[in-house]
């Protein structure tokens, strides 16, 4: 239970960083922290203490099979990391372009649109 709680704390830290920081690079870091918190959550779902690698070999009985770690969340996390990398590179590219335009990373100086 504690790990889920800590995972939620990590998510909230990322959200705080995203909302409270004015520097757009720090906002990007906040998003990355949130992303990693959710990846960690997926890993925790599949984790089993003292579990075995899920490779089926002949002669394994039901008890051994029951000790396997769930491999599916790990596959999901791999995909999710790749997606996160794509989003991150786009975010960083936009940050660089915005720095070229305004000469600053401060969102309060960049912001002109009113939402």
């Amino acid at each position: 239970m504690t790990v889920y709680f800590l995972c939620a704390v990590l998510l909230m830290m990322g959200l705080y960083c995203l909302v409270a920081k004015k520097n757009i690079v720090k906002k990007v870091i906040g998003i990355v922290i949130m992303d990693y918190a959710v990846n960690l959550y997926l890993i925790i779902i599949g984790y089993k203490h003292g579990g075995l690698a899920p490779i089926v070999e002949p002669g394994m009985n039901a008890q051994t099979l029951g000790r396997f770690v769930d491999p599916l969340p790990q596959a999901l996390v791999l995909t999710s990391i790749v997606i996160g990398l794509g989003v991150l590179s786009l975010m960083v590219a936009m940050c660089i372009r915005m720095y070229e335009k305004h000469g600053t990373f401060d969102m309060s100086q960049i912001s002109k649109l009113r939402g």
Partner: protein
Amino acid sequence: MNLVPLYVAIPLLAAFLIPLLGMWWKKSGEVLATLSTVLLSVMAIASIGAPAVVHHMGGWPFPEGIAIVSDGLAVLLLIAVNVVGFLCVIFSLKYMQEYTGLPKYYGLFMLMIAGMNGVVVSGDLFNLFVFLEIASIASYALVAFGVEADELEAGFKYLVLGSVASIMILFAVGTVYAVTGTLNMADAAREIASRFGGPEMNPALLLAAAFFLMGFSLKAALVPFHAWLPDAHPSAPAPISAMLSGVVIKSLGIYAICRIFFHVFGFAAGNPSSVIIANAMIAFAILSIVIGGLLAIGQWDLKRLLAYSSIGQIGYVMLGIGIGARVLATGGARSLAALAILGGLFHLINHAAFKSLLFLSSGAIQQATGTRDMKRMGGLKERMPITAATTNLAALSIAGVPPFSGFWSKLVIIVAAVKAGHVVISSIAIAMAFVTLVYYVKLQREVLFGAVRGAVEKAREVPAVMYVPLIILAVVCVGFGLLYPVVGARILEPATDALLNGAEYIKLVLG
């Protein structure tokens, strides 16, 4: 031969080939994007009335494989996405010529279509998330395509909020997996119905439902999650604005909400959690209708006015669907739920037609006059008669003037709301329909009619390749209004049936 995977495969292949061939062949984007969107539109229109099909990717049967499902609801969205996509490509041929890096533009455009088609046909929760991200990343990049200060800021804002939405959705997908042990939507629905179908919903599932609703509402730009839309839609190039307002917010937001909540979670009568979810949907819808409508009145930037109007109109779509959900959750008559959902879906496809038409028109106007400021326009119908006529038609249609399509869909939604006993909600919806009329009358008066003034004086009609898509969409707007019996019976009723019969969906996918 099962054609459903081609909805993803064709645009994905085009998105890969266009930038690659674009290194040697300057016209690769124009040619390949037009060809593939024509093909996709023909496929989507040809699949009207076809029975629902399931394709197991790579021949892997359930539960190992990923299912690709095309039912009535998916066909409705596929038609909207691909036909609007095709018309936007045609419009882009001329409009985008002033930009550089066109192969990249068309590549991203096809990637966005691939992502949206993938979201629509996917039968797997995680797969839906992946396609959602494909479409989202492409649309973030396309909003910022102009790389001017405004475009970058709007794109960054959209990117940040969109990423938060994606993170919420991924969290919810993980939670559903932790509770049910499956990612297949039909299987998860069966698990949820059999294990948690009683009066109490599992708290973890309720958390997942809340995260799904927040995430998809952010993608759909429902108030209070709308902050990115009024910046992102006006900043994007006009064909992209038309795609974003016309189909992206619907396929990534509204469609996903429908699929997840009606088919995976299900609105079981007598389950208090279902009522909470349905109430939240209605609350978001009413907030969107009121706030989007009121903010639209004060706008003088043509595209910002249209963007705020999108928030209001997407609220009407959500209202119809939310009322249908509430009727189901409180154990009301099935026919009433069907009426409300039919109204919502009808408004969805109508809005896809007239809002993409309005954004394309705004692009044509911007190119001809060089401005989006409505204070500097007037008397457009003297200088650009075709664009003015189509804009006028779309404005009448979206404002709900009979006999155009927008009138009928709003009427159905409001009738359903009254019949379900929501007197206050339906009177708000009626009042805001008049507000819609107010800001489109403003648009007509300031831009289309009156004396020729300001930037319009030197304006000339846009070339045929730009106004032909406008005419086609205008015909669609009128056609949906006048030929409702055909459209309703062939497209909308199968979609409503598919949405209401969650059990049928499970049977279809699991066999």
